[in-house]
C-alpha cells in the first residue's frame, strides 16, 4: 500500500483541498442550516445532480469497453468468439429497441421517430424484456437455491460447540420458515421468530455499529489524507 506521509505536490494539494471541502460540505449540510441567507440543502442537491450527470456518462464508457473487448475476441477468433458475437448482437438489439419502445424511449410522442416504427418495435421490446430478460435474470438468480443447498450441507457440520450452535439455530430457522413445518409443530415458527428478533438482531446490530465506526474512520482518513 502507498504511504500517505510523503509530501504532496501543488496539484495534489489543490485536489486535496477540493476533496476535503466538498466532503465536509456534505457532512456539514446535514447538521447546519443558514436560513434566510442560502439554502445549503438546495446547493448540495444541485451539486449531486451534476455528479449524477457526470457519473451517468461513464455508462457509455462501459459499453465502449465491452464492445472493444468482445470485438477483439471476434477479430482474433479466440476460443469464445461466437459468444462474443451473441453478446454484441444482444447488447445492440436491446439498446435499439429500448431507445425506441421502452418506458425510457427517446421519442415516446413520435415527434421524430415515425409512429409506425414505434408500433412495430413495442411488441418486440416487450418480448425481449418480459419474456427474455426477466426470465433469464430470474433463472440465474434461482441458481442460488442449488448453491445454498450444496453450501449448507458442506458448512453445517457439528465439529465444535460453536458450529453445533450454528447448526441447531440454522436448522430451527430453516424449519420455521417452511410453511408446512407449522403443521408438524407450531412451535417452529415461534422459535424462528425469537431467533430472528433477538440473537439475529443483536448480531446484526453489532456488525452494523462496528462497520459504521469503521466507515467513519475510513472516510475521514480518505478525506483528509492524514493517518491518525
Amino acid at each position, binding site marked *: 500500500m502507498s504511504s500517505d506521509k510523503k509530501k504532496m505536490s501543488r496539484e495534489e494539494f489543490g485536489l486535496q483541498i477540493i476533496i476535503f471541502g466538498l466532503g465536509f460540505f456534505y457532512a456539514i449540510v446535514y447538521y447546519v442550516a443558514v436560513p434566510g441567507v442560502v439554502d445549503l440543502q438546495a446547493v448540495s442537491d444541485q451539486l449531486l445532480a451534476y455528479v*449524477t450527470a457526470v457519473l451517468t456518462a461513464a455508462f457509455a464508457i462501459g459499453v465502449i469497453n465491452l464492445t472493444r473487448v468482445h470485438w477483439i475476441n471476434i477479430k482474433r477468433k479466440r476460443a469464445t468468439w461466437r459468444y462474443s458475437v451473441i453478446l454484441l448482437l444482444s447488447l445492440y438489439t436491446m439498446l435499439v429497441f429500448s431507445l425506441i419502445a421502452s418506458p425510457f424511449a427517446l421519442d415516446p410522442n413520435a415527434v421524430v421517430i415515425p409512429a409506425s416504427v414505434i408500433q412495430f418495435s413495442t411488441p418486440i421490446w416487450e418480448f425481449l424484456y418480459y419474456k427474455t430478460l426477466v426470465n433469464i435474470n430470474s433463472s440465474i438468480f434461482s441458481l442460488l437455491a442449488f448453491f445454498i443447498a450444496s453450501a449448507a450441507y458442506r458448512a453445517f457440520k457439528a465439529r465444535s460447540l460453536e458450529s453445533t450452535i450454528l447448526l441447531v439455530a*440454522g436448522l430451527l430457522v430453516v424449519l420455521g420458515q417452511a410453511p408446512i413445518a407449522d403443521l408438524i409443530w407450531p412451535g417452529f415458527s415461534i422459535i424462528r421468530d425469537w431467533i430472528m428478533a433477538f440473537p*439475529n438482531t443483536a448480531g446484526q446490530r453489532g456488525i452494523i455499529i462496528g462497520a459504521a465506526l469503521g466507515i467513519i474512520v475510513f472516510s475521514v482518513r480518505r478525506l483528509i489524507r492524514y493517518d491518525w
Partner: protein
Amino acid sequence: MSNSLKSDPRVVYLILLLVVTVPLLTHSVVAVPVTPTTLALYQFIEKLPANSLVFESFDYATSVVPELHPQAIIVTQHLFLRPLKVLFVSQGVDGPTLADAVLDTINKGNKTYGVDYANLGYIPNSATLIGMPANISQFLPVDTHGNPTARLPIIKEFPAAKQASLVITYDDDGSAMYAYLQYWEGRYGIPVAVGATATVAPGFMPFYNSGQLVGILFSIRGAAEYESLVFQEYHCCLGLSGSSSSMVALSAAHLLIVAMVAFTNAAYFVTRIRNRRSNKA
C-alpha cells in the same frame, strides 16, 4: 450417499430440482401461518383513513421478480380494495415497467388513473428523493405516460410527498429502504414498510424492532401470508399473486435441506465413532 454428495454436488442439485418441481406441477396448496411482521403491515394498511396517500416504490430488479413481484401484486390489490390513493415510484430502472405489469395484473375496480393512482416513474438520485417531500412535481415533472404531473388530480390533491401516510418499498438489496428511512421517515416521520427477499429481510429486523419499519414481507412466503389475510377479509384474490401455490414447493426445499444436513451430520458422527473404535483397537 454422503460420499456421492461430497464428490459430485450435482446429485444434490438433481434431488432439489425434483423436490421443487413435483409440488409445482401437482399444484399442491398448504395453509400458511402469518408472521407478525406481515400481519403488522396488513393491519397498518387496514387502519389507514380513507383517502390516505400511499407510495409504492418498485426498487427491485427483474432477477427477483419471482420473489418480490407476488408481494407487489397482492399488496397493490389490497390498496386498491381500500379507498386509498396510490403513487408508484421507483429507485431502480426496472421499476416503472414492473409497476405497469402489476397494474395490468390486478383488478383496479373503479379507480381512475391520474385521480386515484399514477405511475410517476424513476427517481434518478437522492436529490430527487430529498426534494419530493416538499414538492413532487418539481422533481418528477412527468409521469411514465408523458403527462405533466402538476396537472394530475392526485398530485393537485397531494402536492408533497410528506403528506403520504405510508411508503412501501419492494427492495432486493436494502439500499432503497435505507434511503426512505433516512430521507422520509427520519426527516418527515412518513411510515415505511418493506417487501424484501429472503436473504436481506433478516437484516431489517433491527429496524422493525425499533419501530422504524411498520412491517416486513419476507420473500414469496410473505406474499402468500398477505394473500391469505386479504382473502380472509375480502373473500377474493386467492391465487392472484401465484404465491400460495408455491408454498408446498418452498416447504419441500426447506425440509430437504434440513434432511441433508441431518444426514450429513449423522454420517459424520458415525465415521468419527468408527475411527475412534478402530484407533482403540
